[in-house]
C-alpha cells in the first residue's frame, strides 16, 4: 500500500455538514424504496413530508453558506473533478435547490393524501415513492456539476413524473402521460446527444472543465451541433413554445397536487439547466455574439407569451387555463434570457422563483376546488366566492400576481424584464410585455367574474370551505407571493447577483 495522499486524509476527516450537497439528493433517493417497504400509508406520508422538510433545511443551509463563503465543491466518492463527479453549489443552484425543496415542503403535506388519485388506496405508498424519486431527480439536476449526471437525474425525475401524471383520474391522464413520455424521452435523448458531442470534442463531462476546454474549439461545427441538440432537448423539458405540446394535457389531467408540484418545479429546473448550458458551458459571448441566440429565442419567447395567454383566455377548464398561462410565463423567463443583459436575465431568474410560488399556489387552489366540486370546469366555479371565501381569495391574490399588479411578485419580475428590454433598446418588446399582461387581466378576470359575480346555479352540489391541511399550504405559497412582492429586494438581489455571475460581469 502506498502512503495515503493528503487528499485522502481530507476525506477521512469530513463531517456530516460537508456532505450536505449529496445528502439532499441521497435522502429522497433512499426514502423512495423505503416507502415501498413500509407500505403503511400514514407512515409513508409522514416520511415523505419529513424528507421534504429535511431537504429544505439542507438547501437553506447551503444557500447561507454559499452567500457567506462562496462556491461549494463536493467530490462524490472522493474522486476529484474533473475525473470524478463533482457536486458544485454556487449562488444559482443554491437558489434553485431552495425553490424546489420549499415547494416540495409546502405541497407534500397538502390534503390528507390519496385524494384525486386513480389508485387503490392500499397502494398509495407507491405514489409517495414516485413523488420522492421525482424530488430526488429535480434536486440532483440542480446540485450536480457533471453534465452526464444531469441527464441521469433528468430521466429519474421525468420517469417519476410520467407515472405520477398517469395516476390522475380519467383515461385522458394516461394519454397525457404517454405523450409526455415520448416527448420527454426525445428531449432527454437530444440532451444526451448534445453531451456526447461535447464529450467527443473535449473529453470531459465536468461543466466548469467543459467551459475551459471548449474555448479553443468554440466555433467548430461539432460544438454548434451539440449546442442545438442541448437547447432543443431542454426546450422540450421546459415547455418552450412550440415544444410545449406535452404540457397542457399533462397538467390538466394529472392529480391536482401533482400539477401544483410539477408546475412549480419541473419546468423551473429545466430552465435552470438551460441557464447552465448557455452561460456556464458555452458562455455568454459565444451564445449572444457568435450564435446570436436572441434572434431565435426572442421570437419564440414572444410567441409563447401571446399564444399561451390567448389560449388561456379561450379555455373552459381552469387547470388547462393555468397550464397555458404557464407557457406564457415560461415565455417571460426565456425572454429575460434572450435579452442577454443583467436586468433581463435577473428578471427571468426572479420570475422563475415568483412563478413557482404563484402557479404552485394557484394549482393548489384548483386542487381545493376539484376536491369540493369534483369539476375543473370554469363554469362550475360559479358563486364559489361565497362558498369558499378563503380559497377563492387566494385565487384572487394569485391572479393579481399573474397579471403583475404592484405589491405582488409578478410586478417585480415584469419590472426587471421591462427595464432589461429598455436597456437593450427593445422598446417594442417592453410594450409587448405590458400588452401580454393585459391578456392576463382578461383570463384572470374571466375566472373572477364567474367566481364572484355569477350565482351558484340552482341544484348545484352544496360545497363548503376546505380544511386547514389544504388552506395552509395554499396560503403559504400565495402569502409568499405577496411577501416577496413587498420585500422585492430579498429575491431580486440574489437574482441580480446570479445574473452578474452568469454574464461574467461581477462576483
Amino acid at each position, binding site marked *: 500500500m502506498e502512503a495515503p495522499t493528503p487528499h485522502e486524509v481530507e476525506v477521512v476527516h469530513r463531517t456530516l455538514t460537508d456532505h450536505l450537497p449529496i445528502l439532499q439528493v441521497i435522502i429522497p433517493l433512499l426514502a423512495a424504496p423505503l416507502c415501498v417497504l413500509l407500505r403503511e400509508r400514514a407512515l409513508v406520508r409522514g416520511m415523505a413530508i419529513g424528507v421534504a422538510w429535511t431537504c429544505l433545511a439542507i438547501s437553506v443551509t447551503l444557500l447561507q453558506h454559499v452567500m457567506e463563503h462562496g462556491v461549494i465543491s463536493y467530490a462524490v466518492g472522493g474522486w476529484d473533478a474533473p475525473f470524478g463527479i463533482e457536486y458544485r453549489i454556487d449562488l444559482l443552484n443554491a437558489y434553485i435547490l431552495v425553490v424546489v425543496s420549499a415547494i416540495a415542503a409546502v405541497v407534500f403535506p397538502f390534503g390528507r393524501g390519496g385524494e384525486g388519485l386513480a389508485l387503490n388506496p392500499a397502494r398509495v405508498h407507491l405514489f409517495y415513492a414516485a413523488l420522492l424519486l421525482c424530488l430526488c431527480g429535480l434536486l440532483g439536476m440542480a446540485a450536480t456539476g457533471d453534465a452526464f449526471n444531469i441527464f441521469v437525474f433528468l430521466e429519474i425525475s421525468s420517469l417519476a413524473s410520467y*407515472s405520477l401524471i398517469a395516476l390522475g383520474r380519467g383515461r385522458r391522464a394516461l394519454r397525457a402521460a404517454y405523450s409526455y413520455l415520448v416527448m420527454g424521452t426525445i428531449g432527454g435523448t437530444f440532451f444526451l446527444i448534445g453531451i456526447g458531442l461535447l464529450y467527443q470534442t473535449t473529453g470531459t463531462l465536468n461543466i466548469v472543465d467543459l467551459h475551459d476546454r471548449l474555448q479553443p474549439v468554440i466555433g467548430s461545427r461539432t460544438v454548434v451541433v451539440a449546442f442545438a441538440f442541448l437547447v432543443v432537448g431542454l426546450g422540450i423539458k421546459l415547455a418552450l413554445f412550440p415544444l410545449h405540446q406535452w404540457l397542457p394535457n399533462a397538467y390538466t389531467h394529472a392529480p391536482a397536487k401533482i400539477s401544483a408540484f410539477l408546475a412549480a418545479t419541473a419546468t423551473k429546473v429545466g430552465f435552470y439547466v438551460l441557464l447552465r448550458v448557455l452561460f456556464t458551458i458555452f458562455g455568454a459571448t459565444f451564445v449572444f455574439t457568435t450564435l446570436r441566440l436572441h434572434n431565435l429565442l426572442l421570437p419564440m419567447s414572444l410567441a409563447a407569451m401571446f399564444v399561451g395567454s390567448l389560449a388561456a383566455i379561450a379555455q*373552459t377548464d381552469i387547470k388547462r387555463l393555468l397550464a397555458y398561462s404557464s407557457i406564457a410565463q415560461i415565455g417571460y423567463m426565456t425572454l429575460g434570457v434572450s435579452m442577454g443583459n443583467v436586468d433581463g436575465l435577473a428578471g427571468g431568474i426572479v420570475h422563475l422563483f415568483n412563478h413557482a410560488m404563484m402557479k404552485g399556489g394557484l394549482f393548489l387552489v384548483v386542487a381545493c376546488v376539484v376536491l369540493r366540486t369534483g369539476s375543473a370546469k370554469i363554469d362550475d366555479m360559479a358563486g364559489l366566492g361565497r362558498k369558499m371565501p378563503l380559497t377563492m381569495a387566494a385565487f384572487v391574490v394569485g391572479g393579481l400576481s399573474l397579471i403583475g399588479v404592484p405589491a405582488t411578485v409578478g410586478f417585480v419580475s415584469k419590472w426587471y424584464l421591462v427595464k432589461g428590454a429598455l436597456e437593450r433598446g427593445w422598446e417594442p418588446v417592453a410594450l409587448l410585455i405590458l400588452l401580454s399582461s393585459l391578456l392576463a387581466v382578461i383570463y384572470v378576470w374571466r375566472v373572477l367574474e364567474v367566481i364572484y359575480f355569477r350565482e351558484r346555479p340552482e341544484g348545484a352540489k352544496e360545497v363548503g370551505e376546505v380544511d386547514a391541511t389544504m388552506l395552509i399550504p395554499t396560503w403559504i405559497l400565495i402569502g409568499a407571493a405577496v411577501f416577496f412582492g413587498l420585500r422585492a429586494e430579498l429575491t431580486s438581489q440574489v437574482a441580480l447577483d446570479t445574473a452578474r455571475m452568469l454574464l461574467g460581469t461581477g462576483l
Partner: protein
Amino acid sequence: MSGLPIYWMAIVLMMVGLYTVIARDNLVKKIMGLNLFQVAVIMLYVSMGKVEEGTAPILDHGHLPEGFQHFSNPLPHVLMLTAIVVGVATTALGLALAVRIKEEYGTVEEDEIVLMDQALERGEG
C-alpha cells in the same frame, strides 16, 4: 462523404427511429421507434470510446499489453450502461401505459384515441 461510416449508421438509425415516432399511430410502434432512436445514441457513444490501435484498458502487471501504445476509452461504455437502464425503464413504462390505454380506450391507435377524446370534450362542452 466525410466522417466515419459508423456515424452515418447512427444517424440513419436515429432518423428511422424518429420517423417511426412521427409517422406511426400505433402507440406500441411509437415505443419501438423511440427505442431505435435511443439505441442509435448508444451506438454513437460506444463508437467514441474506440481508439485506433487501442486495447482494452486493463493493465498487464502495471504495463501496457505487448504491442499496444494506447488504451481505448472505457468511460463511454460505462455511461451507456446507465443510458441503457434509462432506456429499459422508459420502454417498460411506455409499454405499461400502452397496456392501460388499451384497457381504457380499447385501442392503441393514437388517431382513434384523439377522436374519442375530442368527442368526449364536445359532449361536455
